[in-house]
């Protein structure tokens, strides 16, 4: 089978490309591998002694891992923000960037799934979630839904990325009738992954801090802020270290879309804070714990206000055209958005939800070194996957990695695909 031969050739060359590179590339990869090793050792400790090595207790039963998971689901949804204008509005410069958004989604999802794996008490039983072999409690369990949508979203992105790169590798244009529907499908998918993740918290009536219908829209707003933030930075790194060309207009367009999302995010937070403080019910305790502290427990307060300050700073820098179109201030805006959303959506969502506990107890959670190391290791895996994918993708898109010479009979097997307009991912190369 020609396809099998070609595809294995594609896989082997890609793998080879991922492990060869400049000293700088290698230094980066080794650095990540060291982090992975640190994480693995910490995880081994957690496996040996149980989740008791974390700061989690019955009062605060989710913490650093699940907070990071929630944030990364948002990053994974980022692919969408670049996909929407590219495919719906045919806005050209952004189009070649779509593939990088999808690579980011794939790596972010790897990180998400690993963060859930390190959080569960019996990771060896994960197969209990697989339908038929195990039992997936749909439709009633939101976590079951989350498992479905995250994996589906992961699969869709992976297929699109693999297809585009493989076809490019073979020197053929991608199949429009496959890619366009899948990419269009990935838009509602991205929104639904994040909505379902929000519902995971939103549906819990026992935790008034989460049980607010503003949660899902606010999740989307913060995802559409933080995801593109990371993308803008990555794209600049990409054009610095490779021959890949990315136009400033594309970055500015993403920055503009980000500005709306950052504004919306702040607005929704403001609306929630107003409702809590003005109505001043007993539910206010959780919000007060976050912004003011409760009974002298003030560990989270500095984080709360730095998140607010960073998000406001980002809004100002991104909304003013002059600062948005200046790469220095644009980057400051992106970093501020990223950190602001990370704080507010990770720890800022999970911990106040649990504090005070349902029986009124205040247990002040602070992640242990094991938790931090394990999470760092997981992020390093994500970064490793992202770097390797990026390296291969760039080489293929630049034509440095090709199937040559073209094996005999290829042409005969391949149905003619329609010619593309001059704005495909490889158009300007």
């Amino acid at each position: 089978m020609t396809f099998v031969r070609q595809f294995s050739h594609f896989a082997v060359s890609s793998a080879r490309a991922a492990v060869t590179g400049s000293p700088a590339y290698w230094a980066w990869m080794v650095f990540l591998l060291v982090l992975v090793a640190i994480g693995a050792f910490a995880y081994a400790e957690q496996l040996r002694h149980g989740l008791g090595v974390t700061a989690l207790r019955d009062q605060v039963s989710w913490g650093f891992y699940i907070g990071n998971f929630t944030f990364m689901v948002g990053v994974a949804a980022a692919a969408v923000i670049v996909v929407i204008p590219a495919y719906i509005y045919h806005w050209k410069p952004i189009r070649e960037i779509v593939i990088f958004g999808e690579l980011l989604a794939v790596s972010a999802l790897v990180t998400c799934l690993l963060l859930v794996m390190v959080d569960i008490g019996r990771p060896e039983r994960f197969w209990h979630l697989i339908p038929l072999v195990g039992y997936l409690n749909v439709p009633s369990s939101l976590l079951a839904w989350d498992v479905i949508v995250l994996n589906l979203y992961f699969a869709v992105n992976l297929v699109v990325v693999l297809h585009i790169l493989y076809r490019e590798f073979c020197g053929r244009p991608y199949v429009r009738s496959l890619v366009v529907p899948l990419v269009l499908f990935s838009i509602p998918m991205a929104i639904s992954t994040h909505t379902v993740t929000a519902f995971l918290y939103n549906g819990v009536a026992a935790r008034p801090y989460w049980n607010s219908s503003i949660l899902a829209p606010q999740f989307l707003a913060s995802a559409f802020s933080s995801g593109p933030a990371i993308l803008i930075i990555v794209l600049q790194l990409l054009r610095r270290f490779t021959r890949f060309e990315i136009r400033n207009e594309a970055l500015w367009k993403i920055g503009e879309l980000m500005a709306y999302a950052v504004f919306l995010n702040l607005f929704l937070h403001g609306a929630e804070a107003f409702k809590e403080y003005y109505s001043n019910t007993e539910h206010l305790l959780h919000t007060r714990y976050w912004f003011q502290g409760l009974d002298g427990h003030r560990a989270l307060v500095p984080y709360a206000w730095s998140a607010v300050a960073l998000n406001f700073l980002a809004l100002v820098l991104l909304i003013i055209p002059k600062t948005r179109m200046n790469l220095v201030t644009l980057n400051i805006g992106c970093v501020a958005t990223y950190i602001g959303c990370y704080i507010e959506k990770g720890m800022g969502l999970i911990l106040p939800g649990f504090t005070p506990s349902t029986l009124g107890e205040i247990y002040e959670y602070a992640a242990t070194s094991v938790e931090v190391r394990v999470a760092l290791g997981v992020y390093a895996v994500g970064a490793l996957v992202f770097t390797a994918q990026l390296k291969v993708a760039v080489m293929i898109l630049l034509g440095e990695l090709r199937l040559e010479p073209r094996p005999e009979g290829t042409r005969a097997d391949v149905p003619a695909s329609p010619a593309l307009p001059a704005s495909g991912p490889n158009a300007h190369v």
Partner: protein
Amino acid sequence: MDEKPPKATRREFATCAAAAAAGFLLTACGPRRLHEVPPERLQRLVREMEREYSAKYGQDVTVSDAGPMPGVLFGYALDISRCIGCRRCVYACVEENNQSRDPQVQWIRVLQMEKERGIDFEHANPYYEPSEVPEDGHFYVPVQCQHCRNAPCTKVCPTGATWTEKDGIVVVDYDWCIGCRCCMSACPYGARQFNWRQPSIPEGDLNASTHYLGNRPRPRGVVEKCTFCIQRVRAGRYPACVEVCPVGARKFGNLLDPDSEIRYIIEHKRVMTLKRELNTMPKFFYFYGT
């Protein structure tokens, strides 16, 4: 790709068939949710558990597989005006239900509240430690699993490892729980405990009379909770906390039996449930008997 050689198709078919067979074998013979195992299989599993625990704890452990009795729906009532906050129920429960001693796991949490404020979780104190109880100006509200008719915890479980039995007892399958702790976030009563570390019970302290959905030894990394002493109540006995209470504040019985004490209390006293607004519909009632 329309000239696919038939060989590959056959290979694909074989692969699919093998996968299907493996799937079938796993489903038929592999571990299953205790919720859905057929009775004969359950008996075998229970015998296996008995052998395992007996060897591990050096005691003659029995694991009952007694099912719900027809016409029985268990309910509980607690007289707040009688409770003196002595926590005897907490420790009787630990011994009866084989909770871990180190680290300590407790299914019952007694909250000390101020009489001036009434039932107010925000100002409740679970860590009161006077030399003598009750303290002036205070009253006590013990909280454990409320065995809700509309249980938020079973709804959120992604693997169906926790459910409500026909007699109204909410149970956990310790062999199926993956330890994701969704149920713990969902429970409005803090009634579920997680085994953060390896549970331990000193030698000889194990209550050898166990039930497969109740007090059998638990592994690390799974959730556990009050089962109304399923091993006792399905054998016609009272839960350990009811028996040990020195002031008779704890009442238990069959909600479907019109002559039961629990029905008398519900019909003649002013009963209430915790966090009514959440519509969890507990089968655990609180009342002021005097």
